[in-house]
Every structure is written in C-alpha cells, then in structure tokens.
C-alpha cells in the first residue's frame, strides 16, 4: 500500500469499463463493498428469520435484537406514525453500520467514507421527508419554519435561520458520517505509518495508539450508523408530527 494515508480512499475500476450513455457505471471496489455489505446483511437476517423457534439461537437472537432495537428507536423518536418507514430506516441503519464495520477490516474499502455516497443517502432522506411533510400537512408544513411563541420582531430572522438549518440538514447529515469515517481511517493509517517509520524501538507508542484507535473506530462506526438513523427518525418526526 502506498504511504499516502488518503490512498485507502481511492476508487478504482474492477473489470471492464461499463458505460451507459455518457455515464460511467463501472464496477469498482466501492461497488464490491456495497454488494458485500448488502449480501451479508441479507444473509444474516435471512438466517435469523428462517426458523420459528420459541427459544432463538444466536443468529436469530441477533436479528431479533436488531429488529427490536431499531423499532424501539423509531417509536421513541418519531412515534407510532413512523411505523410504515420502519423497513427503510432499518435498511439504512444496517447498510451504514455494515459499510462502516467492513471498513474496519484491514485492506478493505469504506463505502461511507465517500461524500457522494453519504450525500445521496442524506439527499434522498431530505427529499423524502420533505415530500412526506407536504403530503401530510400540505402547505401547513411550512409552519415548521415559524416556531410558536417568538416575538414578531424576531420572526423574520428566526424564519430565515430555520430555513437555513432545514436546508443544511442533508449537508450536515452526509458530512457528519463521511468526515467521521474518513478522519478515523486516515488517523489509523497515519499512526500505522508512524509505526513503520519509527521502527522497532519507537514504534510501540504509535502501535498502542493504533490498537486503541481501532477500538474507538469500531465504536464510531456503530455510533455514526446510529446517529444517521436517529437523525433520520427525528427529521421524519418533524414531518409526521408537526408541532412547533
């Protein structure tokens, strides 16, 4: 591997170049890890839902615990009205979590460390939530930008701030995940580089740092998936239960 800590984020073509019109949709390492993540998710949850035993085995327990975890998260933050969107949020959480976790294996590619991937997800969520909000409340959804109990003098300023904060949602959502993933992996790579450059005598300190960082990054991988999913729930809550 190259010494450049950013080279781990390089996307390269696997196999031939595929072009549809002007667009290059070649199979890349990013595609490979997306497929790996989704296939492992489907495999685990398929195995976990196959048997119908009263006392679940380990994989069934895993699937059922994930199910109850996500369903509790949704009902806690977005209420019972968010139930139709359970499958989407569950898929989202699992996809982000598995992409993050796959990235923790050495020599793998982290799908979520690319701004375009997280931005597409966040933009889809943003558009979807906005559409749901307008379908549920019509133009009343615009009341989201006018908080109640605000003095009339401050109202123009507040509305502008609310609109900006609403529009920046997809950016903050996508950048949060992408930056966390990229930063963590870069830092690990840098410390790994230090181990090599400092050699057998001085390399132990960065090595111990690397070990600690690995633990931290696994935590971050889970935490960011959770944050991504719970922010989606909160946005959904705004759209479903409009009370400002």
């Amino acid at each position, binding site marked *: 591997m190259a010494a450049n800590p950013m080279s781990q984020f390089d996307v390269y073509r696997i196999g031939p170049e595929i072009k549809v019109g002007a667009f290059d949709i070649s199979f890349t390492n*990013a595609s490979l890890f997306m497929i790996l993540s989704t296939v492992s998710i489907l495999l685990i949850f398929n195995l976990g839902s196959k048997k119908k035993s009263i006392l679940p085995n380990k994989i069934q327990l895993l699937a059922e615990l994930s199910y109850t975890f996500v369903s509790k998260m949704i009902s806690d933050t977005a209420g019972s009205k968010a139930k139709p969107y359970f499958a989407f949020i569950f898929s989202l959480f699992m996809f982000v979590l598995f992409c993050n976790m796959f990235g923790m294996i050495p020599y793998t590619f982290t799908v979520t460390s690319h701004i375009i991937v997280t931005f597409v997800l966040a933009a889809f969520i943003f558009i979807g939530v906005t559409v749901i909000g307008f379908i549920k409340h019509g133009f009343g959804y615009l009341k989201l930008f006018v908080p109640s109990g605000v003095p009339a003098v401050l109202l123009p300023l507040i509305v502008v701030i609310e609109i900006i904060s609403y529009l920046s949602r997809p950016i903050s959502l996508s950048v949060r995940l992408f930056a966390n993933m990229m930063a*963590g992996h870069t830092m690990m790579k840098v410390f790994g580089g230090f181990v090599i450059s400092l050699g057998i005598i001085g390399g132990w300190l960065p090595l111990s740092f690397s070990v600690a960082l690995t633990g*931290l990054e696994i935590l971050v991988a889970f935490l960011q998936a959770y944050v991504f999913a719970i922010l989606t729930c909160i946005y959904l809550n705004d759209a479903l239960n409009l009370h400002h």
Partner: protein
Amino acid sequence: MVKKIYFQSIFFSFFFIKEAFAAESGGMPQLNPEFWVSQIFWLILTFGIMYLVLSKLILPKISNNLESRKSQILENIEAAEKQRENSDAKLKEYDEIISKSKLEANSILNQAREKALKDIGAKREVLENQIDNEIAEAEKEIDALRKNAPDKINKIAIETSSELLQKLIGAEVNNSSISAIVDDLYKRNGDKYYGN
C-alpha cells in the same frame, strides 16, 4: 469522556490530513468526480435491492416470529393460569370431600355409640329384670323356708318330746296333746325363739 476523546481524535485527524496534503499533491479521492456516477448507481442498486428484500421478505418474518413468540408466551401464561385455577378448584373439592367424610365419620361414630349404648341399656334392663326375678324368687323361697321352719321345729319338738316322755315314763303319750302344748308355747313365745 468518550465524546471528548472522539472530538479530539477528529481534530487531530484533520491535522494529519493537512500534513498529508502538504506531502502529496493528490488531494482527497472523495472529491474526484470520476466514479461518482458509478457509486450513485451501485448505491441505488444495492440499497434498493436490500431494502426490497428486507421489507418484503425478511422483516415481516422477523416481526411474525416476535409476534408469535409473544402470543405463545401469553397463551402459555393463560394456560398455566387456567391450570392453576383448575388445581385450586380441585383442592377445594378435595377439602370439601375431606370435611364431608369427616362429618360422615363423626355421624357414623355417633350412631354406633348410640346403638352400642342402646344395646347396653337393653341388655342391662334384661339382666336387671332377670336379677330382680331371681332375687324375688330367692326372697320367696327364703320366706317359704322361714314360714315352714317353725312347723318343722314344732314337729321335731313334738316328736322329741314324745320320745323323751316315752323313755321317761315308759308309756305311749298322745301326740296331739304334746302338739297342743307345743303350739301353745309357740304361740306364746314363737317371736322370742325365731326372732321374726
């Protein structure tokens, strides 16, 4: 604490990114738009397929499993409650049977005692009657004996006197005269002799 370390690490990592940028001129591969379309395409494809499979096939099964487990547990609890109620009822029945049989046993005991007492009473009556009869008979006999005793003694006295007289005098004495004397004596002093 974890949060602090986390943010610090992010801060330091950005510091290192700067270093890396200084060293290399490549920049961030994330900002290279060469494969953006490909990534979007594959993201939509894989995520879409995963979403469809999860929402249509897998998640309903898991929710079914959870529901059926819940309902089965509830059913089992209900069945257990029913059985407990049953056993409670049976225990009550059992208690009732025991108390009933105790009462029955008591009544049987009482009846038996009464019967035994009655029997004993009847037998005692019979025995007492018999004893009374026997006593009465014995008394009658004694009375008869007592009544006959003076006559016999008188007879003996007469015979003895007549024999004594014969031996003393040597001549036959009229028994009737002796008996007249004895009778006379008896009438006068009988009470003194026999103590009746």
